[in-house]
């Protein structure tokens, strides 16, 4: 199985630490961040597949971070995790591009299942993009070169 690069973002340090251990045991490559800024920094340096994000955080809150991530790293799948499952925050999160919405406390099995789902979603998306690219390459190699760009 491909290594899934997963980042946990939460201001609760102990939660991050223990959950990281658990997820690492489940075979994920775990990154962790205690704030939105940390998270963005890590995202710049690593090709993270899935982010699990606490909605309520001091400083930049989960929804703002989600928007930021989706703007800069559109392929990253984000799962929202919150202690307070209100319909409003769920709707807003999903509208802003979160792939799932979970309430605490969540079972680790549930969480891994959701992460895998999100990863699958991303993989399918990447596949589509790749296919589209190869089609483009056949039709017009120049455009492909233009579009692909150096960062991809």
């Amino acid at each position, binding site marked *: 199985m491909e290594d899934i690069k997963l980042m946990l973002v939460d201001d609760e340090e102990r939660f991050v630490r*223990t959950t990281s251990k658990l997820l690492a045991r489940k075979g994920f490559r775990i990154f962790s961040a205690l704030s939105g800024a940390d998270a963005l920094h890590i995202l710049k340096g690593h090709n993270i597949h899935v982010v699990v994000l606490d909605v309520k955080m001091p400083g930049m809150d989960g929804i703002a971070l989600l928007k930021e991530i989706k703007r800069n790293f559109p392929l990253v799948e984000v799962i929202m995790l919150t202690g307070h499952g209100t319909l409003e925050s769920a709707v807003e999160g999903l509208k802003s591009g979160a792939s799932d919405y979970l309430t605490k406390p969540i079972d680790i099995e549930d969480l891994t299942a959701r992460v895998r789902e999100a990863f699958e979603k991303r993989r399918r998306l990447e596949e589509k993009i790749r296919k589209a690219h190869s089609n483009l390459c056949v039709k017009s190699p120049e455009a492909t070169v233009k579009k692909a760009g150096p960062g991809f």
Partner: protein
Amino acid sequence: MHHMENEQRYTKLRKMVLVCMILVPLIPFLLTIAIGYYYFTSALEKKTVAATSRIVDDHRSMIEFFLEERRADLEFILNSYNFDYLAQHENLERVFERLQIKSNAFVDLGVFNQEGVHVSYEGPFKLTGRVYKDEDWFIEVMKKGYYISDIFLGFRRVPHFVIAMAKPEESNKWVIRATIDTYIFNDMVKRVRIGRTGEAYLLNRDGIFQTERRSGGNILDEDPDFEKYRTKNTDIKTFTQTDYRGTEYFFATTWLKDKEWLLVVRQESGDAFQALTRAGYLILFISILGIGSILAVAFYLTDRIIHRMIETDTEKDELQEQLIRASRLAELGEMAAGFAHEINNPLQIIKSEHTLVQMILNDLSEKEQLSAAEEMAELTDSINQIGLQVDRCSAITQSILKFGRKSDTTPKNVDLKEFILDVIKMISPRATVNGVDIRLNIANDLPPVFGEAGHLQQVFLNLFNNALDAIYEKHGVQGGILEISATTEIGGMIKISVTDNGCGIDVENQKKIFSPFYTTKPLGKGTGLGLSVCYGIVTAMGGSMAVASEKEVGTTFTVRLSPAQKNNL
């Protein structure tokens, strides 16, 4: 403090309303009565006075006519015969006989010469030869030619009065004199009938009775009250006067024209003004009745008004309090939701830690680094317990969050079985603490109902909590049974029954139990709104609600709801 202020305010208000309620009708009422009384009584009084005056006038005319007639009789004799003729006794006798035929009031007849000698006399006494030269009446008649005496005893010692006339003949004057029968005269004067106590009598200018008075007063006695109504005025005079015996009389008096006698007609005031007194009593009676009814109506209406005001104010206060309580409840709900959220974070950590510990233990036992000792089994059990308890906490916070959720107001199909079980979850901690045995009998094939979940939750929470209250009151923390059943009835309605074995509700209270603000709970405990709101919710959903209860045995509340329409499914 507030209560006392209110009481004072109501007392003041009550006084004001009462005063207005009394004065507004009372003033015109009293004015009407007073004006009516004045005009009515003065008219009556005038009528009485006028009637009495007329009687006096008529009576005087009659007496004067009588005296006038007697005088005319004597005048006729004087002019028809001469002194020498009448001086013969047999002639006088004949003349007297003829006179008596005309009027039997004459007692005797006598002839006097200028010297006052009784030359001839016809009558019951032997007066011939007596000399009257120095008698007052003789001097008077010689001077004026005509004389009517007061009543006097004279030589005969019997009360009588005389009429005398003098006639000049050649150089001499002679006189004839007749005595008038006092009994006839007396009867004539006395004969006036006015009411029960009316009487008439004559007084001379010194207040001596000339005729008898029915109510006491003999001829020639002096009237002790004469001074009080002595008058010079010849007109008819009317007045009210108290006599020497203390009785109040209404008087009408007038002087005769040709004789200085005062005719008095009098009647006891009470008798004279009997109609007036009766009218007075009637008006007094009407006044008392009127004032009484005005007071009664004023008191009654004021009581009603103030009572209504207090009721309205109390209702207003209760509503205000209710509003405050409701907003506090909403705040509390939000706070509870906040707490639940905060608790979820540590719960998550515990859960993660628990999973980690389990994993590590599993790894270790797989690698056979742990002996499967009895302690190991105990440890595993303990760790499992932690997991279970965390799940339990999580269920609690989830239900709080569900309750606090405000957005759930759009009506939708609600699966009753699941829904009721959810609500029971909320009250089960309390039931457990109070040792209440919850028995469920919910059919599996219940159709869904269409409604707002939040409202339905309120209905069932209320019913369950009421049941728990009743159970606690009766049984304390042991022996309570709460039975909740839900079935579909033959007509298709869904019937949910909530039965407790609590303290029960008496018949009187059962009637009022769904009305707003009605509560049997102690002050500050219940709002009295719970069941009325439930009733409102259920009836708005097209359902119905009923209560059946027996004191000290238990209560069953039954809610009937119609199933959701097929097109809503």
